[in-house]
């Protein structure tokens, strides 16, 4: 009873604040900027979620801090770019190639490199993945030089007739601009999150993965090939960034370090959401996306990332198991 009362009080307070805010002069002058910040934050947050899900899975199942995650995303970005540039394959069609490609790359990395340090101290695991990241990023530099490239989607500014209504891109919502590539990236990212959730929680493979995460020895005893599960898990983790790479390619400058910028954000999202939790990664990604845009809006002159790090430290100290994680102590 008291809990319900408290919830009602919080909801009432939130409504009052919201009403006051919409009536204030601040709101009148800043409505558009605010709406844009919310929209941009949520849209990019969806991509953060997808990147973080892969990382979270690897972190949660293999207990590996993977600093090569962003570099793997770079592979996805370049794969998608090259397919578009050389063969005219649409970036969203190239998902069908980048996802399996990165899965194979991930399985290979786990099989030939990470597997050797599964029981090694944290710093060795970290340094190994860092070494892999250095190799991948500089290989991209050798092959494609550091020149940033970008593409233009021919249909990014089209009007789409959807029967009942039509959408004219870029859409304007409360004054905020929504571009087609960002909307698609968000929608597909959330869709893939749902697919991943079903895979992990509703299939036999997913059950085996969760078993290997919780009790590797027990899983081995009931006939699960844990080494194989580890390879598949790392493959799935890499496939997530393969997808994310193709999704961000149309609105990003393609460069060897394009993926690396997502790496540290993904770590923050994983800790925020709770390691190994897919819903946690989804919510965490959106929260971090909103946080970075709000920082830019309210704290003038500071970097977007400042607010993100503040939130991150607060979560680390107060709730290290993350929003969706279970208390282990």
């Amino acid at each position, binding site marked *: 009873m008291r809990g319900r009362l408290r919830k009602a009080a919080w909801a009432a307070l939130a409504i009052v604040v919201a009403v006051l805010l919409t009536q204030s002069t601040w709101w009148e002058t800043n409505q558009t900027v605010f709406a844009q910040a919310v929209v941009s934050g949520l849209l990019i947050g969806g991509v953060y979620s997808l990147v973080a899900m892969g990382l979270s899975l690897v972190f949660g199942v293999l207990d590996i801090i993977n600093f090569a995650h962003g570099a793997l995303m770079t592979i996805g970005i370049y794969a998608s770019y090259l397919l578009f540039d050389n063969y005219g394959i649409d970036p969203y069609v190239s998902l069908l190639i980048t996802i399996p490609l990165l899965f194979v790359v991930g399985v290979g990395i786990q099989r030939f*490199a990470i597997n050797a340090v599964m029981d090694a101290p944290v710093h060795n695991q970290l340094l190994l993945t860092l070494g892999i990241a250095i190799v991948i990023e500089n290989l991209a530099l050798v092959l494609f030089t550091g020149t940033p490239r970008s593409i233009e989607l021919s249909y990014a500014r089209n009007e789409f007739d959807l029967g009942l209504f039509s959408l004219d891109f870029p859409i304007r919502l409360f004054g905020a601009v929504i571009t087609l590539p960002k909307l698609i990236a968000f929608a597909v990212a959330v869709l893939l999150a749902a697919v991943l959730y079903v895979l992990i929680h509703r299939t036999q493979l997913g059950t085996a993965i969760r078993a290997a995460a919780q009790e590797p020895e027990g899983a081995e005893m009931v006939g699960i090939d844990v080494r194989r599960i580890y390879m598949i898990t790392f493959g799935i983790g890499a496939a997530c960034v393969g997808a994310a790479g193709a999704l961000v390619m149309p609105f990003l400058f393609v460069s*060897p370090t394009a993926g690396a910028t997502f790496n540290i954000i993904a770590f923050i999202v994983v800790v925020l959401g709770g390691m190994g939790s897919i819903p946690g990664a989804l919510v965490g990604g959106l929260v971090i996306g909103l946080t970075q845009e709000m920082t830019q809006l309210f704290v003038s002159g500071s970097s977007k990332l400042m607010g993100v790090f503040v939130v991150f430290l607060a979560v680390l100290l107060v709730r290290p198991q993350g929003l969706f994680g279970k208390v282990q102590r």
Partner: protein
Amino acid sequence: MSKIRKLAQASSRDLMVLAIVVTILALVPFGVSRFTLSVAIAALIFALAGIGWNVLSGFAGQFSFGHAAYFGLGAYTVAVTLTKYSISPWLGLILGGLVAAVFGLLTGWISFRFGLKGAYFALATFALAEMLRLTFNTVDFVGAGIGITIPLAGGDDWARIQFEDTPSLQYWVILGLVALSTLAVIGVMKSRIGSMMLAVREDEDAASALGINPLRAKLIAIAISGFITALAGGFYTQSLLFINSDLAFGPLVSVLILLRPIIGGVGTIWGPVLGAGILSVLGEATRSLVRQPPSFLQIIEGVNGLDQVLFGLILVVVIIRAPDGVLGWFRRRRQSRPA
């Protein structure tokens, strides 16, 4: 007095090695070019930073992925006190060390009180270094996005640690700092405090059951660690005559700092110096290979990033083949050899 004598006996082997290593290293400037000397100076700066890292992460077992925080605080303290208040960089080095130690104590106290360890502690240190980078990049007092340029003293100036005419002097100064820090670390590790750190690293619960205060051991470690790494940062400013937030606090700096002790051997007295030596030789070798390749490898000449690819591959192989660093690898080979 007897305590000091006992300490000297227990660590006499380390002290002898220190004397020999420093003597050999002190002779380096006599046989090399100016360019090689600058490489050697850079190697010693990061060896010094690594010696600091090794105290917290190697001996006390708290893995830091953000030692750029201490390095940068040292670097900026020297730059700011010199350019704004005309304070000699010698004093600036000490001040920088103190600033870093206090920063370490404050952030360490909070982190350890809230029970951060392992990967979580590493990520927290990373976040702190990044926050410092973003702050120093925006605050005008410390040069914001432009950074701080140290005015040239002209010629050799002991008071300002600038040796334009005789770079060997600069080399000997940083070698002296490395020697003193190594001496300090040997002293700490042979003392009670050092044993407490090792006990906390091996098993925190068991250590506290024996009456050791783990928080105290970790805080002492973080303060010493921050102080030494800040010395390296301060000297870095004086050798580069310029500092900005990326050079001081960038994530790459943290990686450069921890790479040396890990390659050499985590939690060993000589790991950081050995790792620094190995990495500079490797780095220069791959760089000159790409700059002037043998005739059958003509195609790789001047290809941007290729040296880094080689470097990364070597790193991967070293971690897989020699997981306890080069010193650990030697030790294991010696043990497995039939007597």
